[in-house]
């Protein structure tokens, strides 16, 4: 009976949109670095940590007011505790395991076990609890336990907790982690020299030097000397001891140089990667952005004219390092990657952002592969691809490209118009390039209550020195009405196509303020 209730509860949670929304929001705040508002949560937590540590330092020599104590002990700790519990909660889902178990049990015709999914969920949560970051989170809560004053020192773990919220420290650690082998080798060498020198000085000076009474003193001296700190509290008095000193000092200098060079080289190796990660992270926070694949003539031309309109909302992916350097030199945001690779496109916020991908390399095969790669990851990505030949268009369509641009066809048609209709060539050119005198603009009615229900006649386009060219009815397959009749009634989600001077359109905009321009 109880089991049935638990199963029903699991299914209720599984189907509840509200529960899902709450958990997704919690996940976004705690773990999704692409989430726009996560940074505010991080700043709030960092502030709490800093205040908490400041109180600890102040308390060493001063007494603090009761409310400060209350704030530190109860409020800050309560927030940390809630965060800790929330992290454990979002780590995995019990209801999903139960639903899976029920499905499998039905399929295999066996009894449903509630213990199996519960065990799996608990195991997952336990694995999380044993991770270093979760342990730090727990230790950061302990200082609140007043009967044990010694636990106050665990406030320092709140400093470590900063690691969660500051990317730069994490990045520094990840760079060091990439040179783990080199750093461990140097550490081993350091231990070896320190122990050898410590034993040597102990043997030579134990009876001669009153400051060296034990092997610990000798090891302490060796470490202080090899690090080139040299406090001077212990110094060799015998010639043998001084020789050991000289050797250990030279080794120390060499060791420090090695460590420095390893860290510096790992940083220089990782610098580009860190920069690229930062660009992608910034981009992933945007609601919509553009990925431009390839830095050829067309990308150059596109960015030359439109980079300002898409500031901070685009990235160029190019697999030729020289071209990437060239793009960066021109002031564009570019990274050295292969856009046809699955893991490269996967780094972008495919779930939450509206992404437009421009496949503009000079190679049709590469562009088709890039299109397929993007579409296989998310059908939501809008792909605009460049086709070199007419024969390729069908292939791009099959690959899922939403729009196909054929530079030669466009240019040929422009040439044709320039010859056959020279007078209006300039007019068309102005319309195409969006010149102020003849802007062709779209007015989306989806969010405008002011325009919906009105007739074309009522909008008095002529009076406002605008031309109503057409009306696109809602939906992808919606009808396009050219030169709509005066009595046509505007409907929600229609798109009006108007032409006129920029100032006329701005005025139209001011009348119908809720009009959304696409």
């Amino acid at each position, binding site marked *: 009976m109880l089991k049935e209730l638990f199963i029903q509860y699991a299914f209720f949670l599984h189907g509840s949109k509200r529960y899902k929304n709450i958990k997704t929001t919690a996940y976004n705040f705690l773990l999704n670095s692409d989430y726009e508002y996560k940074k505010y949560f991080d700043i709030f937590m960092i502030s709490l940590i800093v205040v908490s540590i400041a109180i600890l330092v102040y308390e060493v020599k001063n007494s603090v007011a009761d409310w400060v104590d209350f704030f530190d002990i109860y409020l800050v700790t309560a927030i940390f505790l809630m965060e800790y519990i929330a992290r454990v909660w979002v780590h995995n889902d019990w209801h999903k395991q139960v639903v899976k178990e029920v499905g499998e049990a039905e399929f295999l015709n066996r009894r449903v076990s509630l213990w199996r999914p519960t065990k799996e969920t608990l195991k997952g949560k336990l694995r999380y609890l044993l991770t270093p970051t979760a342990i730090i989170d727990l230790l950061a809560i302990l200082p609140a336990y007043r009967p044990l004053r010694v636990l106050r020192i665990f406030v320092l773990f709140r400093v470590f907790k900063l690691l969660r919220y500051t990317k730069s420290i994490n990045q520094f650690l990840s760079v060091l982690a990439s040179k783990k082998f080199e750093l461990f080798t140097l550490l081993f060498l350091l231990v070896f020299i320190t122990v050898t020198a410590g034993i040597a000085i102990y043997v030579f000076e134990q009876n001669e030097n009153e400051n060296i009474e034990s092997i610990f003193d000798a090891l302490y001296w060796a470490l202080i000397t090899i690090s080139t700190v040299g406090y001077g509290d212990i110094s060799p008095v015998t010639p043998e001891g001084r020789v050991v000193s000289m050797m250990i000092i030279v080794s120390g200098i060499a060791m420090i140089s090695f460590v420095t060079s390893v860290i510096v080289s790992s940083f220089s190796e990782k610098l580009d990667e860190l920069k690229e990660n930062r660009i992608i992270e910034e981009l992933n926070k945007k609601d919509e952005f553009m990925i431009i694949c390839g830095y050829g003539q067309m990308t150059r*031309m596109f960015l030359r004219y439109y980079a300002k309109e898409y500031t901070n909302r685009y990235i160029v992916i190019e697999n030729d390092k020289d071209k990437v350097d060239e793009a960066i030199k021109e002031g564009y945001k570019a990274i050295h990657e292969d856009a046809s690779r699955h893991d490269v496109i996967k780094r972008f916020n495919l779930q939450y952002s509206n992404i437009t991908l421009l496949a503009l390399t000079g190679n049709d095969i590469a562009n088709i592969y890039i299109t397929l790669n993007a579409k296989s990851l998310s059908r939501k990505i809008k792909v*605009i691809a460049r086709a070199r030949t007419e024969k390729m268009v069908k292939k791009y369509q099959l690959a899922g490209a939403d729009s196909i641009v054929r530079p030669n066809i466009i240019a040929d048609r*422009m*040439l*044709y118009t320039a*010859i056959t209709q020279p007078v209006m060539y300039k007019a068309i050119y102005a319309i195409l390039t969006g010149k102020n005198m003849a802007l062709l603009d779209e007015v989306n009615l989806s969010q405008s209550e002011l325009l919906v229900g009105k007739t074309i006649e009522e909008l008095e386009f002529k009076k406002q020195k605008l031309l109503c*060219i057409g009306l696109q009815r809602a939906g992808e397959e919606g009808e396009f009405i050219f030169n709509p*009749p005066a009595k046509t009634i505007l409907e929600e989600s229609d798109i009006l196509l108007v032409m006129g001077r920029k100032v006329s359109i701005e005025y139209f905009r001011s009348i119908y303020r809720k009009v959304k321009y696409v």
Partner: protein
Amino acid sequence: MFNRKALMFGYSNTTKFLAENLTKELHYLVIIVDDEESYQEAKKAGYRVKLLDITDDNALEELDVAEDDYLICVMKDHYINVFLTLSLHALFPKTTIIALSESYHATQKLKMAGATRIIDLYQVSANRIHNILTKPVATKLIERLFSPEEDFSFKEMLIPENSILDTVMADDFDFSKHGIILVGMIDKRLSNQFIFITSGLENRFDAGDTLVCIGYNDDLNKFEEYIKGKENAES
């Protein structure tokens, strides 16, 4: 049909497209190439073709070029294309030179060399991409207007003498009754420049003015015939 000639320099897909579509529009069209292979290919395809050294000014000078003809430079090599434009501009300064460019820098050079119109392959494509992103409905319409196979287009119409439109004010005439939209015109009284109808100027139609309209081809053709009539223009 225009009583004009077009001389196209270079043999490529662009030349083929233009040659096929311009035959109806122009009374004479010749492709000029500077290599034997292209010459044979163009000849085999049935085009009127001429082989000459285009770097030789004497050879170019011998071409029969009038002031209202078109010189179309679509050479594959952009160095030669710029050089040819310069040579043609020096030899025939009043003739319209239309050139195809494949880079921003080549466009600048073609401008300096004297090309009257330059179609930059990548600039028009960049504009197209931007329009797809920002004005998808408008872009579809423009694509239809540009596509020769569509039944929908732009059309220039000359107002003939004694037309029903003669001396009619632009604001007083209802084009929508004819299913077309007047985009702009060349008002001979004011200037020889193209004026958008939305520019706010009060235009009067007179014989000799040129109208630019958008609409379905049938409606545009009917309207062109209509304005030749002498009845009173409706208001």
